[in-house]
C-alpha cells in the first residue's frame, strides 16, 4: 500500500467517473499509464478518496484493481507538471479513453 506522495507544495487532485462499458480494462489501463508516463510528476490513482493509492504509471498495479464501470477514479499528482497531468488524466477518463462504445474488449 503506497502512501500519497508528499511534496513541498500540496498535491493536485482530481476525479472522474469510469463510464466505458467494462471499466478500467486492458486497453484503457495501457492508455492511462502511457499518458501518466509523459509527465515528470509522481502520479497516483485510487478508487476511494481515502486510498489505497496506486502508481498511475504501473499497468500491472492498475489492472490488479479491476475497477468496473461506475467506479470513481481519484488522481493525485505532485511535481512541476502536476496540474497539467491531472487535467489530462481526468480528460482521458471522461473521453472514455477514446473507446468505441460497446467495444471495450481490449
Amino acid at each position: 500500500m503506497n502512501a500519497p506522495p508528499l511534496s513541498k507544495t500540496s498535491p493536485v487532485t482530481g476525479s472522474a467517473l469510469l463510464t466505458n462499458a467494462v471499466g478500467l480494462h486492458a486497453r484503457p489501463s495501457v492508455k492511462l499509464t502511457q499518458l501518466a508516463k509523459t509527465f515528470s510528476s509522481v502520479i497516483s490513482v485510487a478508487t476511494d478518496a481515502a486510498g489505497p493509492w496506486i502508481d498511475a504509471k504501473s499497468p500491472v498495479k492498475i489492472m490488479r484493481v479491476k475497477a468496473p464501470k461506475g467506479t470513481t477514479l481519484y488522481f493525485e499528482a505532485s511535481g512541476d507538471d502536476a496540474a497539467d497531468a491531472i487535467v489530462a488524466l481526468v480528460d482521458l477518463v471522461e473521453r472514455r479513453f477514446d473507446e468505441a462504445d460497446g467495444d471495450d474488449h481490449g
Partner: protein
Amino acid sequence: MAELRLAGRPASPGFASGPVVRLVEQKAHRVSSGDPAREADDLKKAIANALLSISALADRAEGEAAEILGFQLAMLEDDALSETAFQSIASGNAADQAWRHALDAEIELYRNGDDEYFRARSADLEDIRDTVLDHLYGSHSQISVPPGAIIAARDLAPSRFLSVDWSRGGAILLSEGSPTSHVAMLARARRVPMIVGLGEIPDSASSLILVDGALGQVIVSPHDETRAEFLKRQSADEEFALKASALETAAAITKDGTRISVLINIAGVEDLAHLDPNICDGIGLVRTEFLFGEGPGLPDEDTQYKAYRQMLEWAGARPVTIRTLDAGGDKPIKGLTVDGESNPFLGIRGVRLSLQRLDVFRVQIRAMLRAAPHGQLKVMVPMITVPSELDEVRALFHEEYESLKARGVKVMMPRIGMMVEVPAAALAVSHFKSDFFSIGSNDLVQYTTAAGRDIGAVASLADLRHPAVLKLIELVTAHGEKSGCDVSLCGDAGGDPELIPLLLQAGLRSLSAAPSLVGRAKLAITEFRFEKAGAGHG
C-alpha cells in the same frame, strides 16, 4: 471408433474439417546455477529477450492484434510484474521457479475475478509467462502447426495464434477458454472458427474432426453420411453467408407478407458486445446457467442484477426473455445439481431443481425483479411439466416482489411464461396459466423421440421433422392463437434454414436463434411462402 459429438460455446463462427493437432503444455527443465546473482541476471535477460520477440510480433501486427501485443509489452515492461520473482530469487529460488510462481499468483488474481472480461485477460498473462520461460529455457521447441490445422488445446495464447498461418483455413477447439478472450477476438477478426468450453477433447489426433463454429458443435470420427452432409452445408454456407449478411438488419417478412419476429439466444452480456440491436426483435433466450458456471461459487444477487440490467438496457424497447436457472441434464453445476442421478435428463433439472433449491432460486428472482424496471423483461421457466410448478414459481415472484417493495426497493413484476419442452406440457398446454409460451425445440425433440442429440448412434432419430414433434408444436401455436398468448421457439431449429419453413407452416411467428445465424434465418423466412391451408393466419 464410433461417431462422437461434442458441444461447446461458440466463440467464432465458420466451418472446418480435418485432422487435429493437439497442443500440450510443455514442461522444460533448467538446472539452477544456485547463485542468486546469476539467476537474477538470467531472468533479466529472458525478460529483455521476451520484450524483443513480442515487439517483433507487434511490428508485423495490425489492429486488434497490435493492441493485444501492446498490452503484453506494457505489462512486461512494468517492474511491478517481476518484483516478487526477483525477491524470491534473492531468497535462494531458481529463476524459472521464481518467475513461474510470481506469474501464476498474478494469473490467479485475474482468474478469480467475477468479471469475465478480466478473467479472459489471464490468457495474456499466461502468454507473457510462457514467452519469458521459453527464453529462460532457451527452448522454443513449440510444436509447429501446419497451415489449415484444427488446433485442440486447453487454452491458446494470442502470440501462439498469431504465429500460425490461417490463410488455408483451420479452427480452434479449446477445452477451457472464453468467447471474450483476446484469442477469440482475433479468431473472429480472421474468420477462424473457434469453440470454447468443450471439456475433455478425446484423444483421437489421427481421426477426422468436423467443426461448426456457429453452433459450437464438434463431430469426432464422423460417419461417411455425416461427413458428406457436413461438406455440403459447408460449401453452401459461403454463398449463403454472403446473401444472409445483407439481410441481418432488415425485417423478416415472408413472400406473402407475414412479418416474423427474429430474436437472439445469448448466454451472457459479453455476447452482446459486438452486436447491433437492430439485427433482432429482442432477446428470445438468455441462458442464465453460464452466469453460474463461471467464477467461484454461485453468482450473488448484485452480479445477476447487473448482468440482467445490462441486457435489458442493450435491448431498449425490445423484449428480453430471461430463462430461470436451467441446470441439470447436460448442464451440471458444481455444488448445485444432483450428482450421480441414474438418468439426469429425466431427473432433477430446470424448474424441478429451482423449486428444491429455493435459497438459490430466490436470489435469482430478486435480481430479476430489480432488473425489470430497466426494460421489457419476460421471465421464462424451463422444464415445466404440471401447472402447479408454474403457479409455485409465480407465487415466489409475488412473495419476493412484496418484500422488496416493502423495503423500498425499485421493482417491477415481469411477465412469467413457460418453456414447452416436455411433451406432456405440449399436449396439455391449455391447462397452464402462462403469460407466454416458448418452445424449447432441442429438448422437445429429444423427449418426444426418446433419442439424445449427443449420442451419435441415435442422433438421426432426434429429428424435428418427425410428424409427432410438428404436431406438438401445432398444438401450442393453435392454443396461443386462440388464447392470445405469444408463442415463440428457441432452440437450434430456430436458426436452421432447412427447418424454418416447417416451423412457420406449424404456426410459429417468432423464432430465436444464435446471433450469428440471424442473417440465415431471415434469408430462409424471406424465401418462404405459406402453403394454402396455413396461409394468412399470422
